[in-house]
């Protein structure tokens, strides 16, 4: 009889008696002798693990008892959290007690405990007691969030709290832990024990071999092999089968070959039991022949982290958006436009994060063996678009999809990727899974927008006939179309539709989803354009001809004060006001000198120039409608517009925003020569980060941003300049307000650290904050995302609704080499006049060292 004890010194084998042993554990400080007796005969496994502290162990062999022990090979590294209890299952643990000691077990639920109940029986043992049985009952694994730890089993020795003995997790969590290698969670007398190394396959058979050895290396005999029960237990609902064959190797190990024939994926345990059913060893097997994934996925390969996904080939040249397509790429086409659209996509790999996938051609070639693209019908597709794949000139694989109207629908663009070697693909649940073959897909959507475009140039257009004053969009679209047919001489709508073989077009006339776009000649229209309730989108597009542009010398506004589904959309128009110091167009003060305003209903502007207004965009209650619900307003600044020489470029007072979609945005616009570029009287919501002003230029304004709301705003990536001697030079932002709190910009210093420029009216200074290891931005859902970069590792963090910083623990554990997070004190509550303090968690408060609360130092074990 021997004592199996790996990784810890055994002082003297001679002390081991054939009838058993007793071990004392003692840490180097001399305290905390932790003695455990075999307590049972013949076989047993002793676990004394402490992942929290590294002990130096001394094992002393004392008077012979009964039984024998083994120490886990992973000496002191892992807790017994690997306890693989599935639903309503009992697992027996051998946990001996030293003579004279009383060891008691208790079960405590963890935070977010999983369903069910865990019991330990017996709860108290002494030397010679039976092993404890840990039983989980009434647990439905599917009801629990992945990774939640359900219970802790705590141990008391002689009434004194010792350590947690083991964790019981949801089974998938166990899988996560095991997925990185096929390690044994039951290292005992026997060990299975070498990592399974799947043979290279390309979607077919998988064969992997593990070896079962005794801890002391003594060989097995054929008789012993025959007495063992080695079987595969699938995890959960997994129906895939594994065939196991066992043979004896020359050196006396048992080779267990697991064969997955024509199987997509497999997950479960190879369990080795003796004739009495006692589990001696097991391995967790988790593999996929073709792993299906969606959107961008992250994977690990040779201890490094990568991402792989599709990139929009057309957008790849824009350095601001070299990002992976997350899930769906969509393209809208007007019904009367059958111009073929050619959309290139390429497959790209990036290291560590999801940026700059274009810079890694060598990496791509080193990791990818081959790629096959397939386009699949993923919805109500009409006719399959044509597509072809090719090698990108820089070495990537790419696919080009060509679509016409007939190709409307939802398609799955799929890439069958074969890596040169197996990689670990990160998944939402179940942890990483190893595969060499990845089936990666995104949804490619080509949507037919019911859109009718009518070019009024060179036509006898309605506008002039309306008297040049007010264009009443309250008329029904049918009436418009009837008039168009009568007056404009364009093709009748029916005739227009008749040019297409689309079966549904006959219903378009009454389809409220239909958009109606008018292209206006490059003429100057004096008067206001108003629209009441709209049942669809009405668009007006300006043109430029011989240096002249379509100009509206007046206002564009919505008259209805109720919500509707229609939007008045303006593009490429020149809107001309009366002058920046004139509040009204007329002496009677009936026509405010506003470019865009609304009593309700949406107006969208893009690519327009608005100049010489008191307020180019009056995003506030109308002067005569103070009682109107403020929530009805929905304007803000739009995209690609120019606000020039106005008193207020954008004046906003409780700009509309809802929780689902609307995020007031001004993007890629220019504010030039205004008294106030953006004037914020107040905001409807106090979450300043929801208001987006980005990639804009502020030139020669008297004041760039005025904020009279106490909400802290986050307006990064804008340019501020001034004309000097005919040249534009960069300058600091000019910000004013009752209490301005605007984070204006972020830059990267020479060391690569992010620095923020922060305007604070209280001190009338523009501060550049100390470097902090955070890179903050907003994602598409409006959630503030904080990226942390340390050396070559990066992590994602988020600021949740409670204002706490949370970090992706998996990233932390798997990637961290050394990470520092500095937690800073939140700012004092603002002096909100309404008593609210909702903005306290809006934007990360970036302060100096004196307010540092603590610094987390995190290093991988």
């Amino acid at each position: 009889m021997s004592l199996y004890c790996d990784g810890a010194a055994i002082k003297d084998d001679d002390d081991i008696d054939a009838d058993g042993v007793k071990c004392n554990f003692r840490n180097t400080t001399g305290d905390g002798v932790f003695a455990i007796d075999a307590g049972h005969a013949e076989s047993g496994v002793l676990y004394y693990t402490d992942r929290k502290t590294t002990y130096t162990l001394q094992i002393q062999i004392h008077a012979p008892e009964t039984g024998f022990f083994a120490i886990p090979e992973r000496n002191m590294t892992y807790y017994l959290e690997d306890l693989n209890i599935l639903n309503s299952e009992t697992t027996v643990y051998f946990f001996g007690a030293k003579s004279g000691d009383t060891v008691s077990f208790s079960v405590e639920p963890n935070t977010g405990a999983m369903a069910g109940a865990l019991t330990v029986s017996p709860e108290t043992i002494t030397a010679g007691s039976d092993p404890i049985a840990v039983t989980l009952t009434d647990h439905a694994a599917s009801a629990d969030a992945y990774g939640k730890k359900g219970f802790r089993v705590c141990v008391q020795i002689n009434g004194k709290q010792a350590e947690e003995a083991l964790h019981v997790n949801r089974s998938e969590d166990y899988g996560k832990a095991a997925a990185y290698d096929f390690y044994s969670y039951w290292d005992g007398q026997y060990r299975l024990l070498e990592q399974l190394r799947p043979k290279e396959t390309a979607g077919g058979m998988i064969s992997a071999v593990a070896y079962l050895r005794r801890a002391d290396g003594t060989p097995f005999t054929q008789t012993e092999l025959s007495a063992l029960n080695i079987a595969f237990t699938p995890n959960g609902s997994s129906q895939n089968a594994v065939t196991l064959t066992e043979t004896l190797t020359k050196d006396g190990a048992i080779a267990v070959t697991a064969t997955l024939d024509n199987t997509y994926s497999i997950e479960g345990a190879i369990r080795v039991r003796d004739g009495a059913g006692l589990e001696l060893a097991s391995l967790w097997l988790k593999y996929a022949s073709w792993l299906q994934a969606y959107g961008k996925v992250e994977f690990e390969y040779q201890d490094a982290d990568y991402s792989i996904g599709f990139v929009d080939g057309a957008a790849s040249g824009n350095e601001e958006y070299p990002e992976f397509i997350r899930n769906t790429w969509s393209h809208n086409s007007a019904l009367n436009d059958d111009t073929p659209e050619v959309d290139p996509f390429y497959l790209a790999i990036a290291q560590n994060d999801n940026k700059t996938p274009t810079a890694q051609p060598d990496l791509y070639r080193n990791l990818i063996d081959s790629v096959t693209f397939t386009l699949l019908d993923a919805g109500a597709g009409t006719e399959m678009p044509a597509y072809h794949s090719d090698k990108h000139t820089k070495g990537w694989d790419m696919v080009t999809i060509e679509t016409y109207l007939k190709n409307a629908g939802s398609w799955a663009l799929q890439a069958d990727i074969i890596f040169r070697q197996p990689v670990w693909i990160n998944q939402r649940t179940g942890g990483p899974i190893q595969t060499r073959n990845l089936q990666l897909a995104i949804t490619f959507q080509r949507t037919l927008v019911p859109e009718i475009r009518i070019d009024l140039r060179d036509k006898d257009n309605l506008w002039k006939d309306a008297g040049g004053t007010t264009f009443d969009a309250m008329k029904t679209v049918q009436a418009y179309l009837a008039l168009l047919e009568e007056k404009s001489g364009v093709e009748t709508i029916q005739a227009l539709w008749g040019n297409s073989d689309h079966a549904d077009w006959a219903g378009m006339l009454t389809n409220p989803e239909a958009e109606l776009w008018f292209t206006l000649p490059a003429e100057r229209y004096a008067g206001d354009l108003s629209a009441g309730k709209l049942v669809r989108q009405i668009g007006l597009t300006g043109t430029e001809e011989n240096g002249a542009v379509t100009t509206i010398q007046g206002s564009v506004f919505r008259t209805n004060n109720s919500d509707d589904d229609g939007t008045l959309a303006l593009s490429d128009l020149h809107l001309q006001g009366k002058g920046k110091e004139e509040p009204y167009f007329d002496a009677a003060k009936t026509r405010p000198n506003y470019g865009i305003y609304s009593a309700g209903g949406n107006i969208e502007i893009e690519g327009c120039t608005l100049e010489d207004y008191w307020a180019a965009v009056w995003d506030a209650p109308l002067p005569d409608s103070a009682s109107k619900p403020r929530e009805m307003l929905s304007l803000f600044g739009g995209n690609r517009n120019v606000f020039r020489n106005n008193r207020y470029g954008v004046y906003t007072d409780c700009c509309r925003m809802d929780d689902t979609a609307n995020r007031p945005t001004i993007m890629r616009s220019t504010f030039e020569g205004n008294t106030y570029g953006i004037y914020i009287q107040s905001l409807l919501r106090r979450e300043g980060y929801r208001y987006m002003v980005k990639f804009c230029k502020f030139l020669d304004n008297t004041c760039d941003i005025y904020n009279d709301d106490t909400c802290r705003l986050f307006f990064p990536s804008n340019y501020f300049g001034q004309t000097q001697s005919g040249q534009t030079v960069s300058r600091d932002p000019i910000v004013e307000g009752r209490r301005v709190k605007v984070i204006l910009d972020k830059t990267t210093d020479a060391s690569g650290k992010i620095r923020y420029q922060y305007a604070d009216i209280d001190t009338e200074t523009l501060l550049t904050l100390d470097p902090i290891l955070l890179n903050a931005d907003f994602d598409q859902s409006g959630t503030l995302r904080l990226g942390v970069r340390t050396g070559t590792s990066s992590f994602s963090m988020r600021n949740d609704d409670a204002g706490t910083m949370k970090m992706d623990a998996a990233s932390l554990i798997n990637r961290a080499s050394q990470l520092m997070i500095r937690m800073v004190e939140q700012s004092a509550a603002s002096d909100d006049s309404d008593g609210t303090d909702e903005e306290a968690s809006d934007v990360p408060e970036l302060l100096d060292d004196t307010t540092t609360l603590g610094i987390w130092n995190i290093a991988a074990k």
Partner: protein
Amino acid sequence: MRKKLAGALAAMLLLGAPVTAFAAEDDFDATVSVVRNADSIVVTVPNNEAVYESANITLTIPFDGDWAYASVKHADGKTVVVAVTDAGITFPVMLGGTYTITESDGKNTESGGSGGGSSSM
């Protein structure tokens, strides 16, 4: 095989069920609460068990006093004695909850600790 997979994938896409995502369930909550009293500092950290157990984590609390050593006692009674440095008081975090920091003579006085900046928590 491929056809079957394609059908499954199409169904998946139809249902809008993403197979992969990037959110992890075990987040690290870095929130720290620090209360400085006349002769002690009380630090409260969240429960991040998954992280605490899987990484080596220490927390540094800035401290500009004249303590040479500090005793850091967790609410469960475990105590570690650490040396105070220019950076502050750095101690291992292995459990969520409250840590009470007081001045120490450098000798370990309670369970587990070994003094002089080492830890046995």
